[in-house]
């Protein structure tokens, strides 16, 4: 498994079609779950330092939709949406995530990556894991179409090689 980390977020590659993002958080899991599923709270962290979340819609039920829109530095909008497939309060959320690429045709929903988010608590601290499961088709398309989520796994596969050859 390739592994790299920056700050305390860790990105690993369990398989060619998966990305695993892991981060330990200093709070019990019901609060992490709350921060992850409450629109006003999502608005405060989801954009990182790269802009402002202008829309965070969460219909937290199986079959319900979510949609986040961020206005990035420079004024352009970045939007993602998806559908909840599984919800276990404070434990696990399974949802699709589709990047709304303005310049390209949207992916068919069936090819959308699946995000599997788990919250595991030990001694009041929570490990959040986000497993991104893609299909080969989706992967190819996003690599060609670009966007925030594109090219991720392929890039991760090559990270070590690049690091080695830049040495």
């Amino acid at each position, binding site marked *: 498994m390739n592994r790299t980390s920056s700050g305390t977020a860790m*990105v690993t590659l369990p398989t060619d079609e998966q990305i695993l993002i892991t981060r330990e958080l200093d709070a019990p899991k019901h609060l992490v779950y709350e921060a992850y599923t409450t629109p006003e709270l999502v608005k405060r*962290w989801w954009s*990182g330092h790269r802009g402002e979340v202008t829309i965070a819609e969460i219909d937290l039920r199986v079959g319900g939709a979510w949609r986040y829109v961020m206005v990035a530095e420079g004024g352009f909008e970045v939007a993602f949406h998806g559908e909840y497939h599984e919800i276990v309060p404070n434990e696990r959320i399974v949802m699709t995530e589709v990047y709304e690429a303005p310049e*390209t045709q949207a992916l068919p929903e069936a090819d959308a990556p699946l995000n599997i988010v788990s919250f595991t608590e030990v001694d009041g601290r929570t490990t959040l894991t986000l497993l991104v499961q893609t299909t080969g088709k989706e992967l190819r398309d996003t*690599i060609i179409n670009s966007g925030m989520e594109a090219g*991720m796994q392929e890039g991760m596969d090559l*990270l070590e090689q690049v690091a080695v050859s830049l040495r």
Partner: protein
Amino acid sequence: MARAATTADAFNAVAEPRRRQILDVLAGGERPVNDMVRLLGLAQPQVSKHLRVLREVGAVDVRDVGRRRLYRLNGHALKPIHDWVSNYERFWSERFDRLDSVLEELKQKEEGDEQDE
């Protein structure tokens, strides 16, 4: 990050699993094409075709040593991918840093609520 949708960029060059395998082999050092044919179990025309794509984006360099052609990995051509991935990872770190402060607030609020009870 915007990127042209052509085949002539590093991202597309590595989207093909066999080409990634070739890069894996070359990450271990310079090799003639026959080595790759043997290691990957592919026919030579296929390997040559993949090598051509990799050379077009500069991910692989070639040089002649006597009668042999040796291929090697050129990591600098893959730097856009490296940069992209680093960027993605930084983005997640930023998100989590902000999540930290949201959580800190929720914790304090909860402790406050408990004291009120």
